[in-house]
């Protein structure tokens, strides 16, 4: 029997091997180093240091405190906000939803820098405003961002959107019938909310809490900007500090493992929490959820939602805008004092600007393209059960979710600074890092998209003699166009804001925008930071808007929660 040669098996093997190398290599080296002494022999000494030396124990405890607090704070903000947006007749609900998602475009470290401008105890704009209103003396401050509380607040600002999206989406999907039944049986509006809506939303909220916990635990940028001036470390900044001269990769690897193990455990817990959601959506078709009438509370609710949005969005951008046009960040600009000095400096004097913009753009474009194609291929194989063993691919594609950015950075550094593949110092190592980091979310988006395309179209193509790959290219891919574009866009945005892996892996020739901003932060050049941050956000917004037009989907709505920045 003569058949067209089907490439699917070699492709499967190649993809599986590629994924295995991408994940196993860095994690493998990480484990090897963690159990090695400085001289190279096998040893548990690193872990003894890790759990007895206060310079490691303190950051570990601090990190846990931060993660728990952020998680609780996020739920306390996101749950009511999500409910207001999804389940009530609050005015501006759509705008609030869009704006919460827009706040995700802000890299957390840029948010942290902006909040420094707002709430540094003496020069912070909000503290200055407070002093001028109350007449308090110069050294009294309302807010102190250089503190554990300040750091928790800033991380929460840029983490609650993830929880919000989960909660709002869950509430959208929740069947209205159960609530209808409740009210028909005589329950009052608030009783229904308390006894039906809240319990149904609880598993999602729990999952959201875990996402926030993970995000806060694995974040590098915000603590590096706020914790170090305040005189404390988190685990991620401590790991990063181990790369200062003389570098201690063994200790860095050992300190990375608790993050890795905790992330894996929490992701399992999250899967279990989300898995239980199933009972709420069993069988049949449901009506639109009913909107609760807020009555007189309508506008106060909208006001409250806007106040919440001021924290990650309105206030920080006002501060960045002010600094961009000001000689000294702590001074409020007027028409007379506004200056283009920072723009001139950033674009005509600072020699790193253009190379960093070029590297960032190149990496974002190539990572988005490679990542989206790889995710598409894997999602296809898994969704259509194209070959035996397809489940392994799905597992491998989601596995990087469990690797925090800074840990992946350390692992890749250890793996690719040696032969046979000495990639350190090239853009390739950053490409690998970014593809690995973004693959899980890309895969999850595309695999859900595949479920929406009926296989019979592909079967027709196959029956007419086309190979699997040909079918994929000619039939499936065009049908998935909008999902693929959304995924591409999502990766592009995520790469631009990535700092935690880049800060370990860059060299002077491969500096990206996020690292440049971080460098400028260390020398206190806030004017240039403000300009670059606004440029960064402008690029991101333009790309998202363009892709939304092309793809016709709401990209931001598909943002999947994962540790970043």
């Amino acid at each position: 029997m003569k058949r067209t040669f089907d490439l699917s098996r070699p492709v499967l093997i190649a993809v599986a091997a590629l994924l295995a190398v991408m994940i196993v290599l860095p994690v493998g080296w990480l484990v090897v180093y963690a159990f090695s002494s400085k001289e190279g022999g096998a040893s548990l000494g690193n872990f003894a240091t890790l759990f007895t030396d206060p310079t490691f124990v303190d950051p570990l405890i601090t990190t846990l405190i931060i993660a728990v607090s952020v998680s609780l704070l996020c739920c306390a903000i996101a749950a009511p906000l999500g409910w207001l947006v999804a389940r009530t007749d609050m005015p501006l609900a759509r705008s609030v939803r869009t704006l919460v998602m827009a706040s995700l475009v802000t890299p957390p470290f840029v948010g942290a820098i902006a909040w420094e401008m707002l709430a540094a105890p003496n020069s912070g704009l909000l503290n200055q405003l407070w002093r001028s209103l109350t007449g308090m003396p110069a050294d009294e401050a309302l807010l102190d961002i250089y503190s554990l509380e300040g750091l928790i607040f800033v991380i929460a600002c840029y983490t609650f959107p993830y929880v919000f999206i989960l909660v709002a989406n869950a509430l959208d999907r929740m069947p209205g019938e159960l609530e209808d039944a409740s009210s028909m049986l005589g329950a009052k509006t608030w009783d229904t909310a308390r006894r039906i809506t809240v319990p149904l939303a609880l598993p999602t909220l729990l999952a959201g809490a875990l996402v926030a916990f993970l995000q806060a635990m694995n974040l590098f940028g915000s603590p590096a900007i706020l914790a170090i001036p305040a005189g404390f470390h988190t685990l991620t900044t401590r790991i990063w500090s181990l790369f200062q001269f003389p570098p201690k990769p063994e200790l860095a690897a050992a300190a990375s493992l608790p993050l890795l193990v905790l992330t894996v455990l929490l992701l399992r817990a999250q899967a279990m929490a989300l898995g239980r959601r199933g009972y709420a959506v069993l069988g049949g078709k449901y009506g639109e959820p009913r909107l609760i009438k807020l009555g007189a509370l309508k506008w106060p609710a909208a006001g409250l939602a806007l106040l919440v949005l001021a924290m990650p969005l309105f206030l920080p951008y006002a501060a960045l805008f002010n600094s961009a046009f000001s000689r000294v960040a702590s001074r409020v600009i007027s028409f007379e004092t506004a200056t283009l000095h920072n723009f001139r400096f950033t674009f005509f004097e600072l020699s790193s600007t253009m190379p960093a913009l070029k590297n960032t753009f190149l990496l974002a474009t190539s990572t988005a393209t490679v990542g989206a194609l790889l995710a598409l291929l894997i999602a296809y194989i898994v969704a259509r059960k194209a070959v035996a063993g397809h489940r392994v691919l799905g597992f491998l594609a989601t596995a990087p979710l469990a690797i925090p950015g800074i840990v992946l950075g350390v692992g890749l550094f250890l793996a690719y600074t040696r032969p046979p593949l000495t990639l350190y110092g090239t853009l390739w190592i950053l490409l690998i890092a970014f593809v690995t980091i973004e693959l899980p979310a890309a895969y999850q988006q595309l695999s859900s998209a595949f479920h929406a395309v009926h296989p019979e179209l592909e079967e027709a193509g196959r029956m007419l003699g086309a190979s699997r790959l040909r079918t994929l290219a000619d039939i499936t891919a065009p049908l998935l166009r909008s999902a693929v574009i959304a995924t591409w866009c999502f990766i592009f945005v995520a790469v631009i804001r990535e700092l935690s892996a880049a800060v370990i892996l860059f060299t002077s020739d491969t500096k990206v925008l996020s690292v440049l901003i971080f460098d400028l932060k260390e020398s206190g050049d806030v004017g240039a930071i403000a300009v670059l941050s606004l440029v960064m956000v402008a690029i991101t917004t333009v790309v998202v808007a363009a892709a939304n037009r092309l793809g016709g989907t709401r990209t931001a709505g598909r943002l999947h929660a994962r540790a970043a920045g």
Partner: protein
Amino acid sequence: MHRRTLLASAALLPFGARVVSAAPPPETITPALIEAARKEGKVSYYTAMDLSVAEPMARTFEAKFPGITVRVERSGAERVFQRIGMEYQSKIYNCDVANSSDAAHFLPWKRQGWLAPFVTVDMAENVPAEQRDPDGTYVNQRTHLSTIAYNTSLVKPEDAPKGFADLLDPKYAGKMVKGHPGYSGTIMTATQQIVQVLGWGYFEKLAKQKVLQVQSATEPPKKIEAGERAIAVDGSDYLFWMAKERGAPIQVVHAVEGTPMISNPMAVFKAAPNPNAARLLVAWIMSAEGQQFIVDLSGQYPANKLVKAKAGRPALASIKTLPEDAAAVEKQADEIKLKYAKFFKV
């Protein structure tokens, strides 16, 4: 011209430098060097100098020698040292010229044979012998100080600290900002010098004063100008002065115990990808013109004797400075970082 050459040989001979040193014969900026540099078209300059001085200097060099772009790679000296080390470990040779505020870095670099000897006539004749390597591998580019300073709108002159011991006064708690020796070469060098005079006990007490810990020695000037803290424990003096000359309410304090002095050596790397552009850049920076540019813009103290210090700044000789000892900094650097992290927690 003739007289200058004579003077130079007279200055060199007593040290026997000509006889024992491995330094190459002094060069000048020749059309051939410019042409070769232009063919390379670019040069990377790793430095710890504040961007507000380093970048304009680079742009001025580019205007003087069209066709050559300078990429300024600025970070804290300790970070620059770490980056070059990590790059060399992976056989990545990006660095053409390095300029560090931690003179100790040039000792291991020279020992490992990473530096290319390069001497210009300007260096041989006009830079004091103690400010350059006898083997011609590095030369001091400029000197600055790490000083105390305060914001005069937040601290009255009569309440201002006079020296390091004053900073331990409880009335200054929570009002100070300070750079980090794990990042900044200026702070590393200054820490070593202050420990010699006051011991670690001083830092242990200072750490209890709720000091705002920034990284670079270039940041305390920016933080007190913004009014975020009233007093800078340390920081690059030229930035305090530049801010003051711009109208910022800043007063520099030369500590009664003595002010740490920081030289900023510069070297061409042997594996430089752009060796000619590297030598041209170094030759120009060490020329009277290059030195004058640094002095005019920033008022740092020039290494080239032909260039006068900036008017309005205190003469270096009039300030009680602490002795700089690069070899000691090299030996004590790891201990300094450990002890510092122990007291200040970061």
